[in-house]
């Protein structure tokens, strides 16, 4: 029988029969211009290691003086969340399209500038799940808006906007878990918008 190369294998199971589930993201997103990323390091499970352990992390630093930007919604709502769709390409490779839903409000100049930036730019988005995990969406190829209808009047003053992967250039990985340069400081980095300013 031919030797089949395996790109991954299961290392551990999951017991969730009696575990109370967390199901919500903090209602905020930190959006980073992809061009502002200085360094990025992805750490994944090394299956060649005789005793592999699970790794699915990313660490990044912004360019000097750059910062992410926070978007927030009512914490009682559920406007902000992330998700992904897995497909198999025609060549047989697993690929993932990332999506982040956010709330944008208003009809003023500022909101127009934001929407146009989203439409024409490329972004990485950080979300924090209610268990503290910080996920990074669009790490590889960036996110931008798909087709949308923005109707402030019909939706009570704002609209839900989805930043997603381009269908032609999906991601190779699931949304990665952010790891700070100082382990344990992920929340600090998220709260500080991953800024690399001169203080």
């Amino acid at each position: 029988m031919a030797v089949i190369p395996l790109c991954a294998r299961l290392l551990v199971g999951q017991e969730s029969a009696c575990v109370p589930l967390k199901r919500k993201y903090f209602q905020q997103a930190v959006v980073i211009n992809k061009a502002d990323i200085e360094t990025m390091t992805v750490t994944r499970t090394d299956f060649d290691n005789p005793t592999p352990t699970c790794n699915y992390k990313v660490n990044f630093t912004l360019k000097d003086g750059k910062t992410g930007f926070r978007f927030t919604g009512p914490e009682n709502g559920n406007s902000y969340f992330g998700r992904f769709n897995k497909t198999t390409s025609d060549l047989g490779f697993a690929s993932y399209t990332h999506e982040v839903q956010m709330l944008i409000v208003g009809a003023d100049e500022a909101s127009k500038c934001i929407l146009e930036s989203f439409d024409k730019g490329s972004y990485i988005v950080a979300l924090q799940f209610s268990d503290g995990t910080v996920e990074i969406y669009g790490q590889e190829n960036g996110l931008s808006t798909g087709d949308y209808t923005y109707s402030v009047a019909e939706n009570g003053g704002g609209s839900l906007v989805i930043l997603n992967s381009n269908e032609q250039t999906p991601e190779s990985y699931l949304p990665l878990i952010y790891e700070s340069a100082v382990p344990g400081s992920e929340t600090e980095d998220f709260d500080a918008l991953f800024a690399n300013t001169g203080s």
Partner: protein
Amino acid sequence: MTREELIAIGSHKVRRDETLMAFYLKEFEKLFGRKPNCAACTFVSDWRRFEQVKESASSKNILKMEKTFQLNNNAKNIIHTYRVDKRPIRTYGYKMTEEFAKAYLEHGTPEQIEARKQWFRKLPKEAVEVAEVDETIITVNGEEVFLSDATGKQMTAYAKENGIDFGEAKKVDDKREVIRKTL
């Protein structure tokens, strides 16, 4: 016997006792995954590594437990940041460690550091100065020895090997100084 008890006995006595050396080599292998190729040749530097594994673990615990600084109340819920090689290092005030506090007041421009001091009700103490340990090593008959631990006989042999004249130095400490000056 534990590793701590062995270290407390001291390198000098361990080196000269077959039973203690055997225990030391066993513990060394547990720590570093291998025995020294030539235990006598590299004993001094190996013993230092053997001790330092213990020292760094206990000093980390001390750092964790003892904070010599106090932040103002308005500093506890904000994020404090300093940069090393243009890479930000952050913590919330309430999670600030002694190590972070010292680095926070070390990395930055003088103006930044002065501004950061305003967050402190009590500044961190400078790291306690450890008494300088003389780590000068000499080789006597193919064996490494700390100069500070060398016996009179070892120093005499070293002087003979290296053509050193002790002159009027008769006491062990005086001979030690003569050798140190030649290094």
